């Protein structure tokens, strides 16, 4: 009876949450501090920011297996913050520190390009969000002493990463 009541109560409180658990381990530390989670649009990939050798570094993993995926351009310019992924994870946008200034960048995992996105007026981003199709970017900035969100167009700069699209030109090839 008590169990039935508990089930009913929890069922009312959380009718949709089916399964929850920790993010997959990264493999090198059991008590890893992990922040700023970001999922690809299809939920297949997880990006998060972890402390590695005292530096906040973005980590990209397959959610199901925990496999760590390489990010060729992002082994420096720490601290990293605010990662954001497109539908299939072709694009990873984040904020890096470059020459004493924060800069939004996008790593294209398909073409292996890094795209720095300097802001007009030399302003610096605080947080960002990339639209899943890769066609818009929202940035949180500081302007006149207050937070301000601005939206920018990426059409013509990035190809669309569609929900059912192809991540790699050769799907059978290993990820870069």
């Amino acid at each position, binding site marked *: 009876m008590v169990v039935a009541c508990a089930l009913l109560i929890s069922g009312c409180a959380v009718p949709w*949450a089916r399964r929850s658990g920790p993010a997959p381990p990264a493999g090198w530390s059991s008590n890893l501090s992990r922040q700023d989670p970001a999922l690809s649009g299809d939920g297949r990939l*997880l990006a998060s920011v972890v402390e590695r050798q005292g530096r906040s570094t973005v980590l990209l993993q397959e959610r199901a297996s925990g496999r760590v995926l390489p990010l060729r351009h992002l082994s420096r310019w720490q601290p990293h913050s605010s990662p954001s992924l497109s539908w299939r994870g072709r694009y990873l946008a984040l904020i890096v520190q470059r020459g004493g200034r924060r800069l939004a960048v996008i790593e294209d995992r398909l073409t292996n390009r890094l795209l720095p996105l300097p802001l007009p007026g030399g302003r610096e981003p605080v947080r960002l969000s990339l639209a899943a199709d890769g066609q*818009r970017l*929202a940035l949180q900035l500081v302007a006149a002493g207050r937070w301000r969100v601005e939206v920018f167009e990426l059409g013509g700069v990035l190809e669309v990463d569609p929900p059912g699209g192809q991540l790699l030109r050769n799907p059978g090839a290993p990820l870069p």
Partner: protein
Amino acid sequence: MTSPQRRGSGTASLGLGLTLLMAFLLGACGGTPLRPLPAINQRLEQTGSSREPSLSGRWLALISGRNGRERVELVDLELNRPVPLPGLNRPDAQPLSVSVDAAGERVALVRQRDGRTELALYRRSRQSLQPLPLEPPGVPRQVQLSADGRVLAVQVSRGGLWQVDLIELP
């Protein structure tokens, strides 16, 4: 006197020179200049302070406010106007993080209320906000919903350590 043919050739050279100069300047800046969306940004400016953006599909969720009173706002970027979120914002709650799916149907939220920090999921078609208890218990801070609305990742403080929980939603 310069012939028209030579003038044409000079103009072409000038055009090529300007193109090369622009390419050099862009390269020297080390990046692709961002193109703002003026109409949307002007409207966002009118809402006062805004932070914690979440873009997905045609939707932008964010936390906006004036005079220290903040609320969750969902903007339809195609129409450039906010949509109503009945039952989501409360005067006694302080939103901390927000995320929207690509359909604009589900909005995940971390908020402080009555001295507690809680994770909740709002469904726009039902106009209902449901708490999502964390197991084991912890204090949520940053939330992100996958664009398909099926998985939620949340940054949680447990025992002085930041962790990430993943919650699958039907």
